[in-house]
């Protein structure tokens, strides 16, 4: 274990596509108007959820695998500097080249530089959250380099100049007819007779990408796992586009967050059981590729890895939030989330949507960045995400923690006490003595007046207005429970029993 001796530094936050530019409630309201999105999402999340439950229940040792997965990730975080150095030494010894990137911008510049060194202006890409996070495609485009997404869903989203809405099925917000129309409009040489059968559309994508795969000289990928004790990288996929990108080009550039390490080869047996079942609800995904540096005569001979911080060290500095870095991006928490199911991924703004995004994005950017402080409130704290998470990240606890971080940061910002502060002070004064409370309760009939004849209060003043935006409050009773109780209980009868009140019938 490493002991920290230097000067503690302030957390350095991440940049790139990690921000909600609109507050979650606002963005969600917009997304909720999209009935197609909601129907598709509902169908998708429920289908994957059911498949997941079925394959998870097949394993007698699922909970033991989760326990192991959680502990392995916790030990990775505790030993991160040492494991990074070990990985670096092994990967480098086998001919790979490591680059370190402090933030999105630095990572983008490194990747563009490596591509430029090859003389190429086109690259093929495997689906990767890290490169989405840093906005690599947009950056490369500015630099005159065309990056082709090769995962079918990513291709659909890219052709439509749209953003992914789900980390596993990024085009889930589009139906087959919309996809056919996108192909006809954006795919050069698409057959005008193209039908909207998924099999036909998949074959159109195959034909479109095949020539690119066979001629590409450079590929860019992410990685699901990196094994410190051997220097091995792993990519988990379904379509074979990953294998194409990882095998055929001469140069392979992988971008990976520093938290993706696993200590040993043995740990892979845990995560390769947890990930496919949690993610697509399959016993195993169709293809997994593993490579260790360069292998002569097999695959790319120029192998690079960009190790990305971009706010991960800041997340790690938050003792209560750091376990968010255990995430293996399976998307199980999204598929069980009642909020995500209705709003979809776009409402979260960041590359990382759903319950994990609601904690990871503000941890990486800092709670005050743009509208990210609205994300920890995008949850009913029902706990379904925690139960589904293969590495047992306690998302509800971290959500509550980040809400308090948010409240604290707001307090620091305003000089004048906020309405909430005043309200809390008033409440503590009132609740500290029965007399004071009794005095206040005398005011209840006033509330009845405010409610009017329909006995509903539809708008409260000040910050309490948020509560009444989507609900009515029933008019307060004519007297408080305390005063009713006092009246009813002051004259016990001869047997020491209370006399029944007039308007509640005797149940006996």
């Amino acid at each position: 274990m490493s002991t920290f001796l230097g000067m503690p530094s302030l957390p350095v936050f991440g940049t790139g596509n990690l921000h909600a530019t609109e507050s979650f409630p606002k963005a969600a309201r917009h997304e909720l108007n999209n009935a197609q999105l909601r129907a598709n999402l509902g169908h998708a999340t429920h289908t994957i959820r059911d498949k997941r439950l079925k394959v998870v229940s097949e394993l007698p040792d699922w909970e033991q695998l989760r326990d192991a997965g959680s502990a392995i990730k916790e030990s990775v975080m505790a030993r991160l500097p040492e494991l990074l150095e070990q990985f670096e030494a092994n990967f480098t010894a086998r001919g790979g080249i490591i680059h370190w990137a402090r933030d999105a911008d630095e990572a983008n510049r490194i990747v563009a530089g490596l591509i430029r060194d090859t003389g190429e202006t086109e690259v093929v890409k495997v689906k990767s959250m890290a490169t989405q996070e840093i906005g690599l495609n947009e950056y490369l485009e500015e630099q005159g380099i065309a990056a082709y997404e090769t995962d079918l869903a990513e291709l659909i989203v890219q052709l439509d100049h749209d953003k992914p809405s789900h980390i596993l099925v990024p085009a889930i917000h589009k139906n087959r007819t919309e996809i056919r129309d996108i192909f006809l409009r954006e795919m050069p040489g698409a057959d005008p007779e193209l039908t909207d059968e998924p099999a036909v559309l998949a074959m159109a994508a195959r034909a479109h990408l095949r020539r690119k795969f066979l001629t590409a000289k450079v590929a860019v990928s992410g990685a699901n796992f990196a094994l410190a004790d051997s220097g091995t990288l792993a990519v988990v996929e379904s379509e074979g586009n990953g294998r194409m990108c990882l095998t055929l080009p001469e140069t392979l550039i992988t971008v990976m967050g520093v938290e993706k390490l696993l200590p040993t080869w043995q740990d892979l047996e845990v995560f390769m059981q947890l990930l496919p079942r949690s993610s697509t609800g399959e016993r195993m995904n169709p293809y997994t590729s593993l490579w260790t540096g360069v292998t002569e005569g097999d695959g790319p001979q120029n192998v690079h890895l960009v190790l990305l911080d971009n706010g991960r060290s800041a997340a790690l500095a938050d003792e209560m939030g750091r376990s968010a870095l255990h995430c293996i991006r399976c998307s199980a928490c999204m598929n069980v989330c009642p909020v995500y199911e209705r709003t979809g991924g776009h409402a979260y703004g960041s590359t990382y949507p759903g319950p994990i995004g609601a904690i990871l994005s503000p941890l990486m950017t800092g709670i005050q960045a743009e509208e990210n402080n609205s994300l920890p409130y995008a949850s009913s704290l029902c706990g379904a995400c925690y139960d589904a998470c293969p590495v047992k990240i306690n998302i509800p606890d971290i959500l509550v923690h980040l809400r308090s971080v948010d409240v604290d940061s707001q307090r620091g910002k305003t000089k004048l006490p906020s309405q909430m502060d005043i309200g809390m002070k008033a409440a503590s004064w009132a609740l500290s003595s029965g007399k004071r409370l009794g005095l206040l309760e005398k005011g209840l009939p006033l509330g009845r007046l405010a409610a009017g004849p329909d006995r509903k209060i539809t708008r409260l003043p000040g910050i309490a207005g948020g509560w009444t935006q989507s609900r009515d409050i029933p008019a307060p009773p004519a007297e408080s429970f305390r005063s009713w109780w006092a009246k009813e209980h002051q004259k016990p009868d001869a047997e020491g029993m209370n006399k029944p009140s007039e308007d509640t019938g005797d149940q006996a």
Partner: protein
Amino acid sequence: MSAREDILGRIRSALRDSPEVPRIPRGYRATSGLDEAACIELLVDRLEDYKARVSVVGAAEVPALIAGLLAGAGSYVVPDGLDALWLAAVDSQPGNARRRTDSAAAPLTVAELDSVDAVVTGSAVAVAETGTIILDGSPDQGRRAISLVPDHHICVVDAKDIAGILPEALRRIDGTRPLTMISGPSATSDIELERVEGVHGPRRLDVIIVR
């Protein structure tokens, strides 16, 4: 300061509370306890679930089976370490598919691989419970490109190489070799979650399990 030092410094600073390194509870199964017959049965079931076609045969039947699967193919590729006996029947078949051999000394180009119809390889290890076959680039499996570009993969699995569960299989593998884990033909569920078999990888996977 270099980015490397900077990042490692930030991480060390983030960990200044010296979090405890937990003991890893490995209470999950390390072995399945399945015998060879049970492993074969389970592997067949799982592969068929992925829409792969599976045959379980004795060693003597392999050449005829391969010849049958290659009927109608114009050409096929094999790694140079593949058991030549397996190919005897296809090579003597009238109108046979033309054999191309890929080796380190004379590797086929990507365009050549794209022009062959099929590939025949061996395999390193298989996992019964998950229906997974692992290739590790040994001489009977060849480099990764040859089992990727042709549209039809015929893969021979020796029954003694079938492990019950993943931990057993990974223990038999050298992680530093270029590895491909294959569980059925390539597939996508990206359009309305409807599963379509066969996208970029081989669209047809035939597995021959040799008892």
